[in-house]
Every structure is written in structure tokens, then in C-alpha cells.
């Protein structure tokens, strides 16, 4: 792994804000110069629309856009470009699936989600159940912050059409055994569709579509050093073909005039309108950036720092701090959420912010999780490659300072 100094130099935000201690990468990761340059280059030198124009500029844009698709394909071990659909973000991707599968639902069927889901992998299913009069079943999580295969299995039956769960909780930061979960669910219910929210997994651990064997996998570009406004829906080609296009419009259609509209094949039929071309190019560059560092090295860095963080928090604050989820750092991806006695998460995050330390406070768009834990809010720290031991020391010192004000 490169030195922290060398890494930070690649992120222009640190040039503008040298004292920034950014500990909110789970909300959005910072952007390396390479990503910004690749997007800037598109806008300055070949900002034409894709797949439509017949002039060199348009061909250039189309080539760059499709090259980005190839980069995503390789990154997640998909086999065909038809398996990579660009969306606005993971939320959009999940909604595409929920809306695309509506026709296969009827009263009496059910959908299984879990109570550790982000709202984006909870509400689309809740709304789908409401529209189709299917039932939404919510499986609980283990107190250590992950999903147990057998617990999830208990909630399925022959009327379950889809199961949606997260590879890593955005609150606990603990990995669930995705491959094992899917194997166990499929052994009993081979026909059930499975969607995995990989937002907090991609860019932290290896995500292998073939190994996972999920029908659908979603993630957002901005959480892996890419720009906002771009996400990916991927999965098995046969499962993606089940989705009826709902975000229809320009770029999706072969014949718009006949009574029965004829749509293009994957991926275009699910990519209505002009996509975030610069965003896709930026995402492709972000993926190359991660590959140049090595996902294993990245993950090890996060694991090492997480260990130091958990040790520092528990040694400094003892009984007054409650770390949510397992304290076993090897199972985490750099996210640590906690409750600290004597100061509300909002106040703590605000005071840390006044000292140029960015953490997140609230329920992190995971209210079923906080309800299950009987918590109003928590404080979340999320580490990334541009964080180091010094950041942890600054965080601890800043928390101590905040507590003095409140005691």
C-alpha cells in the first residue's frame, strides 16, 4: 500500500482542506484527481451524446461509455455487457428491479427483506408489496451485525418471489456471508430471486458475481471513489431479462410506433434517456484506481485501521461507549457505529465537524435497524484509504473535547 502522504496527494480535496479528517466514506467517498480528470476530459473534449450521433465526437463518447461498462464487467466478474446496466445510483437500480418484476406478483406471494437494510433496499419492496397485495416479511439480524443464513431461510416459503438483503450493513459495517446465504436459500427454494445490495461491499471486498450466484446485485459509483449520479444494476442475464422496462424513453426502443412497442435488448432497454455519460466514465476510472491499489491491500488497510479504532474507542471510553456489532475487525469494512453516554450523536457529530472531523450521526437511512435496537440515533465513523492512525488519534482527542463541554 502506498504511503498516506502519497495517497492523499491523489485527492485534490486535501490540497484545499489539508486539515480535513474525513470519516464519512460510507456516505460518499472522496474523489481522486484521475476520476475528476477523466470526467473533465469528456466535458471539455468529446461531450457528445452516445449511441445516437454519426460523427467522430459521438463515436468517441460512445466508445468511452462502453469502455466504462467493460471495466465494471471485469471488476465484478460478469460475462457480458448485457449484464451491466448503468443507473443513477443503487436506489434507482433497486427500484428498476422492484418495478420491473411487478407483473410476476399477486396477492398471497411474499417478499423477504431484513431489518438491517438501508431504506433503499427496504422501501421499494414495501411499496411493491403494497401495490401487488403481496406480503413483506422482515427477517431479523444477528446482534453482532450480520445476517444468518438459517434465520433468513425461516422466512421463506414456496410463495416467496424475491429475497433482498445487504452484503454489508451501512450501520454495523459487518460482512454477511453472501455466498453461503444464497447457497442455503437456493438449496431449498431454487426458483426464488435474490437481490444483493452491495453498496458497502464493492470497493472494500472482492465482489464476484459468479461466486455469489445472486440474480441481481446493485451498487453506487460514488461510494467507490466515483462520481455521484451513477450506479450499477448487474446480475444473471436471464434474471435481468425478466425485468419489464419501466424507465422507458429515448434509447430503449426498436419500434415506438406500432401498437405493441418493441424494446431493445439488455442493457439498453433498461437505460432510458441520456445516461450520466461523464459519471460512467468517472466510475470506470475509479475502478481502475481501485485495481491499481489492489482490493486486498485496500481491505487490509481498512481492517487494520478498524482494529486500531475499536481499540482506541473502547480503551478510552470504556463502559461509556457501545460499539454496534462485533468488535472483530476482520469481519468489517471500515465502518464503526457507536453510542456514547452523555452526548447525543447529533451534538457529537456537530462538535467534531467544528474541528474539521466529518462523521455521520442519525439513523443512517436505516430506521428498521435502529428500531430493532431501540436506538434513536448513533454516530458512524467510516474509514478509507486516505485515513491513518493520526486521524484516529485526532478523532479520539476531539471526542474527549466534546465530552468536556457536555459534562
Amino acid at each position: 500500500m502506498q504511503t498516506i502522504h502519497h495517497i492523499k496527494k491523489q485527492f485534490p480535496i486535501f490540497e484545499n482542506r489539508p486539515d480535513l479528517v474525513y470519516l464519512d466514506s460510507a456516505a460518499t467517498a472522496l474523489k481522486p484527481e484521475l476520476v475528476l480528470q477523466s470526467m473533465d476530459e469528456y466535458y471539455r473534449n468529446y461531450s457528445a451524446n452516445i449511441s445516437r450521433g454519426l460523427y467522430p465526437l459521438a463515436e468517441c463518447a460512445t466508445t468511452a461509455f462502453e469502455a466504462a461498462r467493460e471495466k465494471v464487467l471485469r471488476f465484478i466478474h460478469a460475462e457480458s455487457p448485457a449484464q451491466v446496466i448503468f443507473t443513477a445510483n443503487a436506489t434507482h437500480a433497486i427500484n428498476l428491479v422492484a418495478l420491473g418484476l411487478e407483473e410476476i406478483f399477486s396477492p398471497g406471494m411474499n417478499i423477504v427483506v431484513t431489518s438491517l437494510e438501508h431504506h433503499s433496499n427496504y422501501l421499494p419492496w414495501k411499496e411493491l408489496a403494497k401495490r401487488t397485495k403481496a406480503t413483506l416479511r422482515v427477517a431479523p439480524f444477528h446482534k453482532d451485525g450480520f445476517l444468518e443464513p438459517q434465520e433468513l431461510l425461516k422466512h421463506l416459503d414456496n410463495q416467496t418471489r424475491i429475497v433482498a438483503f445487504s452484503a454489508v450493513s451501512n450501520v454495523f459495517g459487518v460482512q454477511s456471508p453472501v455466498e453461503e446465504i444464497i447457497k442455503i436459500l437456493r438449496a431449498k427454494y431454487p426458483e426464488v430471486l435474490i437481490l444483493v445490495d452491495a453498496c458497502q461491499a464493492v470497493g472494500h471486498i472482492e465482489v464476484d458475481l459468479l461466486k455469489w450466484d445472486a440474480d441481481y446485485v446493485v451498487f453506487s459509483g460514488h461510494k467507490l471513489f466515483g462520481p455521484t449520479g451513477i450506479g450499477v444494476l448487474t446480475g444473471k442475464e436471464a434474471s435481468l431479462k425478466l425485468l419489464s422496462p419501466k424507465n422507458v424513453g429515448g434509447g430503449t426502443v426498436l419500434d415506438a410506433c406500432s401498437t405493441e412497442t418493441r424494446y431493445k435488448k439488455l442493457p439498453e432497454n433498461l437505460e432510458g434517456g441520456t445516461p450520466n455519460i461523464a459519471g460512467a466514465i468517472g466510475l470506470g476510472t475509479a475502478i481502475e484506481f481501485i485495481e491499481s491499489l489492489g482490493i486486498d491491500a485496500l481491505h487490509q488497510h481498512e481492517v487494520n485501521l478498524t482494529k486500531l479504532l475499536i481499540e482506541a474507542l473502547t480503551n478510552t471510553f470504556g463502559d461509556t461507549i457501545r460499539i454496534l456489532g462485533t468488535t472483530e475487525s476482520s469481519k468489517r469494512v471500515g465502518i464503526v457505529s457507536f453510542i456514547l453516554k452523555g452526548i447525543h450523536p447529533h451534538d457529537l457529530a456537530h462538535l467534531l465537524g467544528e474541528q474539521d472531523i466529518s462523521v455521520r450521526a442519525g439513523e443512517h437511512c436505516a430506521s428498521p435497524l435502529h428500531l430493532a435496537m431501540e436506538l434513536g440515533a448513533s454516530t458512524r465513523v467510516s474509514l478509507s484509504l486516505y485515513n491513518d492512525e493520526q486521524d484516529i488519534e485526532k478523532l479520539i482527542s476531539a471526542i474527549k473535547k466534546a465530552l468536556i463541554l457536555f459534562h
Partner: protein
Amino acid sequence: MHTLYQENLLDHYRNPRNWGSLPHPTHRGSAENPTCGDKLEVDIDVWHDKIKAIRFRGSGCAVSQASASLLSEHVLGMKKEDVLSLTKETTFKLVGVPLSPVRVKCALLSLETLQQAVINS
């Protein structure tokens, strides 16, 4: 750097004024910010259309709880219709420091709770 947590705000958080409950309130209200768990309840005693007594209680961040304390001092003796005319600017003035959009919600919880109580009877 300028801090939100001025002495006045912290004082109202640590030593909230008009805190607790009334034995026989004429009006009651409650509100919650579900995204962070801030909760407030209010009892008021209205006599000849004016707020004769007020008590807040709740849990949450310093801004939400201190705002309730500040607001309770401000409205004591006020006419009901004047309470309903209070705007978010009143709360901002009472808090006395600029608030980010997230903290605005924390600060306004007390006004929401109080105005709801006035409408209920």
C-alpha cells in the same frame, strides 16, 4: 472557530427551564424527529386565552432540548393566537446562532410540539 454550543444554549440544555409536567394541563402536545430520536412533549395551562403555565419534557440532542427551554420562557404569558403566529425565525432568534438544515429540524421540534398543543385542547 465559531461554535453552535454557546454557553447560553448549553445552560438551557443542562438546566432546562419549565421542565416537567403540569397536573391539570388544558392542552397537551407531542412530536418526534424519527430520523434521530429527538422527542418532546408539552403541557400548557391556558387561562383567559393566555399561557399561564408551560412544561416541556423529552429527550434528544442539545439543540432540540435547549430550544424547548428557550421557547418555554418566550411564550409564558403569550396569547394562544400569538403562539400560533410564531415562525421558525422566532426559534432561530432564540437559539441565537446559525443552524445547518439538519439542526434546523432539531431546533424547530419544540415549536411544532407547542403549536400542536395549542391547536389540540
